[in-house]
């Protein structure tokens, strides 16, 4: 079995007196899309921030590509998309992409082709030279996703990437995520759209600061004897109380 890309073991994270993560175990293998689901406030973003090294774990370990996080250099191999769009409004789409390409340390000669490629994936080729302040909400989301895709990172970490995106585009994005996986790269994605969770290879259910279930969607459904991930979620939540 290959080494895990992301490996979180017994992760504990406290903010002041509040313990957000009690015991989180999660592994993302190569060629895998892992979905992280849980009610809002469960600590999904905290898991992601710890995996990226923005936060330091108070207990347990977080390793990415076999190295302990936080690790600044590893960040060049990770594409991250946050919940907020986080774009520079007064710059054009292309200027945003170029800036983040430079920050990621992509070679100067490759920046242009990389921008063209990611713009095509999110269908923004024609709007690249417009200022972001004139973009619609969906266009901003797509630009934000394309920034995460820059430089073909081996690992994508996406925090609620499809919020506010219309269904057609959502399908398209998931198709793209599928082909990224097929290229051999890994994706960790948080969502609270349950039918999206069905599209992942493995689902982690985060509840009460713990991952209470972590398996393939089909296995989870049989395990809980229900028809959808949504029911799994509700049943698990019910059992916990």
């Amino acid at each position, binding site marked *: 079995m290959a080494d895990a890309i992301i490996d979180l073991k017994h992760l504990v994270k406290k903010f002041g007196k509040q313990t957000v993560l009690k015991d989180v175990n999660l592994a993302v293998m190569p060629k895998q899309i892992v979905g992280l689901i849980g009610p809002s406030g469960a600590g999904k973003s905290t898991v992601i921030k710890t995996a990226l090294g*923005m936060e330091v774990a108070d207990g347990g370990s977080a390793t990415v590509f076999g190295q302990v996080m936080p690790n*600044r250099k590893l960040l060049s191999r990770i594409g991250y998309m946050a919940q907020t769009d*986080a774009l520079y409004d007064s*710059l054009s789409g292309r200027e945003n992409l170029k*800036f983040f390409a430079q*920050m990621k340390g992509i070679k100067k000669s490759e920046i242009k082709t990389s921008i063209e490629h990611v713009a095509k994936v999110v269908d923004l080729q024609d709007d690249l030279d417009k200022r972001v302040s004139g973009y619609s909400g969906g266009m901003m989301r797509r630009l934000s996703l394309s920034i995460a895709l820059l430089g073909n990172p081996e690992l994508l970490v996406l925090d609620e990437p499809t919020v506010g995106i219309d269904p057609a585009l959502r399908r398209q994005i998931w198709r793209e995520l599928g082909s990224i996986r097929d290229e051999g790269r890994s994706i960790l994605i948080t969502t609270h759209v349950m039918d999206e969770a069905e599209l992942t290879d493995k689902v982690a259910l985060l509840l009460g600061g713990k991952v209470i279930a972590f398996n393939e969607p089909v296995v989870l459904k049989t395990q809980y004897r229900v028809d959808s991930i949504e029911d799994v979620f509700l049943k698990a939540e019910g059992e916990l109380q």
Partner: protein
Amino acid sequence: MRTFAIMKRVLTEMIRDKRSLALMFLAPILVLWLMSVIFTANSTTNVEVGTVGVTSSVSTNLDQVKHVTVHHYANEANAKKAMKADKIDAIIHKTDNDYSLTYANTDSSKTSAVKMAFKSALTQTNINQMKSQLGVAQKTIGKLQATLPVQAQRQLQSQMPTQKKATTPQITNHYVYGDSSTGFFDKMLPVLMGFFVFFFVFLISGMALLKERTSGTLSRLLATPVRRSEIVFGYMASYGILAIFQTILIVMATIWLLGVEVVGSVISIIVINLILALVALAFGILLSTFANSEFQMMQFIPILIIPQVFFSGIIPMDSMASWIQDISYIIPIKYSGDAVTGIMMQGKSLFSFGLDISVLLIFLVVLTFLNVRGLKRYRKV
């Protein structure tokens, strides 16, 4: 490389934000110009004095004092009525041989102007009296001398040859800096210039980093392998460039528009203000990490920026309590103000302010270090 890219991006954003640019470049000039207009207009105080029962010689002398106008009143009641109606600023009432003065005192500078004028008018009157008495005495002496024998007259003349030369001495004023119209505003100007540079750079840089944080672009930026120091230096470089232009503009406007005399080198003044701008920049970035919104950033202005003006040397500190003087040592504007005053008014060289410049540089290094450390809040490496 990344520092350069960040600098380029911040500059592009700034150039597209026309309003903030206008604030940085036009607002200081407007305020400086307004202040110069107001302070120069206020430099002469005209006072109206009412007199009751004052001898004509005293009141004529009083009337001859510059910027003083005398009105006569028959009795004190009338004079008081006039004062209530805001027509006169003071009443001088003479009873027997004594004077009693009543001041409206709504403007302390007018009160002291009246005091001065009255004193000099009294002195003048006394001198005139003495002069006329002296004239009488001299005439008597002349008459006495004429009665003396010729030989004794010659002896007397040779004994006091200087007597006639002892007339009133001529006073000529020489100004090392400026001319007779140099006033309080000129003294304030070096400090004010620094204050404007400090204030506007502080505000705009602080806001910029705050926006970066609240919009989430900062955490996105920190999710790339960029170094924390590269972000801070990128910001310093871009705002440094902006500050160069702003400083040059403010200095030039002060010199050309307000016609202020600069004895020393203009370039030295720009250099000092530029270092101050960088301190302001680092300070703004640091404080923005303690603010959660633009409004909270504004709250720092009355708490941390305005008090700087009082300790910066606009108001002379020499006579203040020693603990107040101690506070001024941690005020960056004080150091730039001292140095710019020296260069502008005394023509000292930049190198004679090694201490002031070093202190400013220490501020800069410490604040920059704190900023790089401070970003650790958002990414642990």
